[in-house]
């Protein structure tokens, strides 16, 4: 009964979404001269950054990214707070199934490669697809792999949180330095270099590296916290 | 000189009222006895009683309020008397030169009984208090048709004064009991309660309450009450005569008219047993009220 009602409701809802998005006029009436042309143009001319998406994420809409990083930070803290217990027994894991030796050996082998890949991805975030978020996530998967392969693998929570905090602080500080130098928050105050060089794009790669660190530590922390949760 | 005349006239009125009231009381006792097939006291028995009470020494009292009670009663009776025109053309009985306001009179008339009730209250005799409560309840009962009758008159002749109503009767030559009959009927029915003869003698109720409010009073207190009661019944009768029977031109006519109207409650009472309080109230809110409403409608329409 309830399901029928829900299906009917959703059908109606879907109908309204469909007449909005599947309408041929939807495409036709679009304003094609939005901000994106300026972005594409300025990315090359002023920021000297190859990856427009990165330029947008870090520079044009860097403020969003700051918020985004904050959201991640909040989520990590929230996890700690929500699952907070008076005495947190580190080492007692909720998942205690042993991993097979193939997995553990393979993990050991893969782990440095994954970390390296992650670092590569966020260091080259302004040149190629990818960036701090992606790289950070990759690094976190490496840690995830280690965590599920080795029951005794442990990371110091304090170190994670120090790195995380430092990365965040540096992000804001760089923003503020832009504020002091150029007059606006997150403004580029470093030489932009030439397009498609590793050292180009001013503060963009620096911020993205910081974001990479932050994301990596936060995700690792998240996984770690949840893994160590005993029901 | 005027003042002196007035004061002398006032005193004369009081004496007249006292004498007439006392005599009527005695006559009523006689008539009642005859109807009951008894011999009865002589008509002047009341004077003898009064004299005896006046002569007696009052031994005890229960407090100041008891002393003031009879005084209140007397004040009420006398002052009311002062405001009721005894004769059509005044003369010696002009009294306070007051042409009479009915509402004022109505309120003045309750002043005495209420003071008396307070006096009775202080005696501490439960019978007195019971009597008072009955009396007050009954008063609420008969006051309604009585006021309705008066209001009907006021509406009909567009005046609120007694003298105004008397003038109307003088001019037209018809008594108001004929020109506004329903008001008269209502007023007469209310009068039954006002005189507290049986069946409305629930206040005194000799066998139940040992005469009710007066039960703890004797000597000078009882004398004062008795004389004020007599004066008061004269006042009421005169008021009825003034209102409904065209007033009186001289004392003889006054006596005839008052006596004849006095006979209505007396004769009705002789043959009736006593009501209970709520029966009495319901009686007054039955036919008398109906006639009162009729009277007002009659007055309002004509």
């Amino acid at each position: 009964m309830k399901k029928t009602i829900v299906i009917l409701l959703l059908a109606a809802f879907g109908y309204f979404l469909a007449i909005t998005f599947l309408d041929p006029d939807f495409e036709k009436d679009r304003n094609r001269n939005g901000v994106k042309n300026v972005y594409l143009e300025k990315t090359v001319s002023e920021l000297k950054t190859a990856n427009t998406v990165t330029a947008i994420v870090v520079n044009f809409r860097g403020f969003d990214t700051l918020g985004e990083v904050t959201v991640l930070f909040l989520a990590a803290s929230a996890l700690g707070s929500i699952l907070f217990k008076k005495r947190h027994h580190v080492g007692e894991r909720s998942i205690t199934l042993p991993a097979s030796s193939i997995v553990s050996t393979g993990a050991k082998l893969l782990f440095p490669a994954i970390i390296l890949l992650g670092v590569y991805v966020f260091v080259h975030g302004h040149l190629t697809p990818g960036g701090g978020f992606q790289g950070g996530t990759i690094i976190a998967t490496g840690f995830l792999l280690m965590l599920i392969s080795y029951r005794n693998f442990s990371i110091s929570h304090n170190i994670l949180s120090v790195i995380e905090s430092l990365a965040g602080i540096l992000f804001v500080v760089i923003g503020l330095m832009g504020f002091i130098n150029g007059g606006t928050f997150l403004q580029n105050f470093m030489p932009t270099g030439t397009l498609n060089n590793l050292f180009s794009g001013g503060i963009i790669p620096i911020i993205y590296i910081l974001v990479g660190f932050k994301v990596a530590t936060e995700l690792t922390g998240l996984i770690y916290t949840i893994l160590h949760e005993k029901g | 000189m005027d003042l002196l005349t007035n004061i002398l006239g006032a005193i004369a009125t009081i004496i007249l009222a006292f004498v007439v009231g006392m005599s009527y009381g005695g006559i009523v006792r006689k008539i009642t006895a005859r109807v009951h097939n008894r011999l009865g006291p002589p008509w002047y028995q009341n004077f003898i009683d009064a004299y005896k009470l006046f002569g007696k020494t009052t031994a005890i009292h229960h407090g100041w309020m008891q002393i003031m009670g009879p005084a209140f009663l007397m004040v009420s009776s006398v002052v009311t008397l002062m405001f009721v025109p005894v004769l059509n053309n005044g003369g010696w009985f002009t009294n306070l030169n007051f042409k009479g306001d009915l509402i004022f009179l109505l309120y003045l008339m309750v002043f005495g009984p209420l003071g008396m009730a307070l006096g009775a209250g202080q005696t501490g005799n439960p019978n007195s208090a019971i009597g008072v409560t009955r009396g007050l309840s009954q008063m609420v009962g008969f006051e309604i048709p009585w006021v309705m009758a008066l209001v009907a008159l006021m509406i009909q002749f567009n005046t609120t004064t007694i003298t105004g109503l008397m003038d109307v009767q003088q001019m037209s030559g018809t008594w108001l009991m004929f020109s506004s009959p329903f008001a008269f009927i209502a007023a007469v029915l209310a009068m039954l309660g006002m005189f507290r003869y049986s069946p409305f003698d629930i206040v005194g109720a000799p066998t139940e309450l040992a005469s009710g409010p007066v039960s703890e009073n004797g000597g000078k207190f009882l004398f004062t009450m008795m004389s004020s009661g007599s004066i008061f019944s004269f006042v009421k009768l005169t008021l009825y005569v003034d209102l409904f029977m065209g007033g009186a031109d001289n004392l003889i006519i006054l006596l005839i008219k008052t006596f004849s109207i006095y006979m209505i409650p007396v004769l009705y009472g002789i043959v009736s047993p006593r009501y209970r309080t709520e029966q009495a109230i319901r009686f007054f809110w039955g036919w008398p009220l109906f006639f009162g409403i009729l009277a007002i409608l009659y007055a309002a329409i004509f």
Partner: protein
Amino acid sequence: MVGSPVLLIAIPLLAAFLIPLLGIFWKELVRIIPGLVLGYLTILSASLYIDVLNTGTIVETIAGWRAPWGINLVFSPLTGFLATLMTFIGFIIWLYSYRFKRNVEFEAAKKYFIFLMLLVAGSIGIVITGDIFNQFVFIEIVGISAYALTAFYTGRNSAEAAFKYLIMGSLSASALLIAIILIYSQLGTLNMAEIAANIHNMPPQYRVTAMIFFIIGIGVEAEIFPLNGWAPDAYTEAPGPVGSAFAGIVVKAGIYAMVRMMFTLFDISGPMQILIIIGMITLVVAETSALRQVQLKRMLAYSSIGQMGLVLVAFGMGTKAGVFAALFLMLNHAIIKPLLFFSGSYLVFNSKEKNISEMSGLGKLMPFTAAFFALGSFAIVGLPPFAGFWSKLSVLTAAANDGLLLIIAIVLLVSIVEIVYYFRVINRIYFFKFDKATSVVPHKPRVNALIAMAILAILILVIGFYPDSVSEILNRASEDLLNTPDYIKNVLSTGQSLTY
């Protein structure tokens, strides 16, 4: 000292990242730094606001890109007013909760202060940002910190409340994203001013659909009727100061986002029936639900929702008087509701089951707290000469000017309901006998909490006795909200308007 609006966001974020580090060195810093930050923000915001009132709107660009391209922050008489109010309330809440969880784990206190600070920062962000997607990000920051704060106490049903909040929040975030998608796809921009300038070029069917999704997206934070199921639970289960932060800060941001969207983004002028209808339903449902509550905080929560409904009604009139009244209501509510939550949570604290029926006679044992609660109740139901009266009066006169007699009648009838439930509590606190069986031995409020409450109480009295002290500010703010062309002009023409 004049800074820049961007510091309103950057400093708390910086502090939030700093706190975990500093906490390692000296634990007390975890409590002190948020206070310093919030105090600094209050001063900064106030001085900026004074500046704005004198010289005009500040438009702050970020990363050096002019308005349509970069994100920009708009610090106008309206947003500055709200931002100042929020920072101030945030500071008061910090003051109140300074000793919060004093004797328990350091970790918990650390998290609490971080969340609180980010809640305030996020709310400020919602208000001062000039970019819809940025607003979405800030809404999410507020949302996550709110979920975490709601679930703060581990012993209670708080996770349940937070989970409900989260479901609603995620759904609304999705709706908000759909709205953003629609707008971006049609206009190719995310800047509010540019959207406002071009909104009439957008085909009507998409415009309305976008507006609907906006309403749903923001409605959860603004607690409009069918979307506020989370609110009573969250207010009840969250720690006391957090309830006041929700009522005093978060909801205000939600309401702001909603009216900014209606007034500026979609450039609707004249009466907005939808806001009036939604507001009325919210008001009536919430206030009637509040009548039979057994728990104090839940009652306060419904009352808060109801007040927001009234605010929406006032905004919905669309006239200057209506907007003025709505802002006045928001201001008063932001002052009064925290006071009620502050004092109320001490009352709750001293009853075993958190029920109103267990608060008998607490007024004698904790006179100040009870007096503050009574003052707050008097003010919120609109009894003169307290602050709430003037705002209610403004709403009613605004409604009368528009000839909305039915609305006046309903608002007043609902006010009677409001009176009933508030006065039941006051009666119980003051005129009932203290019962040992149901109450615990009273915990007297600490000095810092008393100071926080006293500041709010004084404000209530000041506004109550001299409402003109704020009327000029509110006038400027309401003019600012209604003046869409100026908003567009200010944002789009200004590259830099910053003074050091």
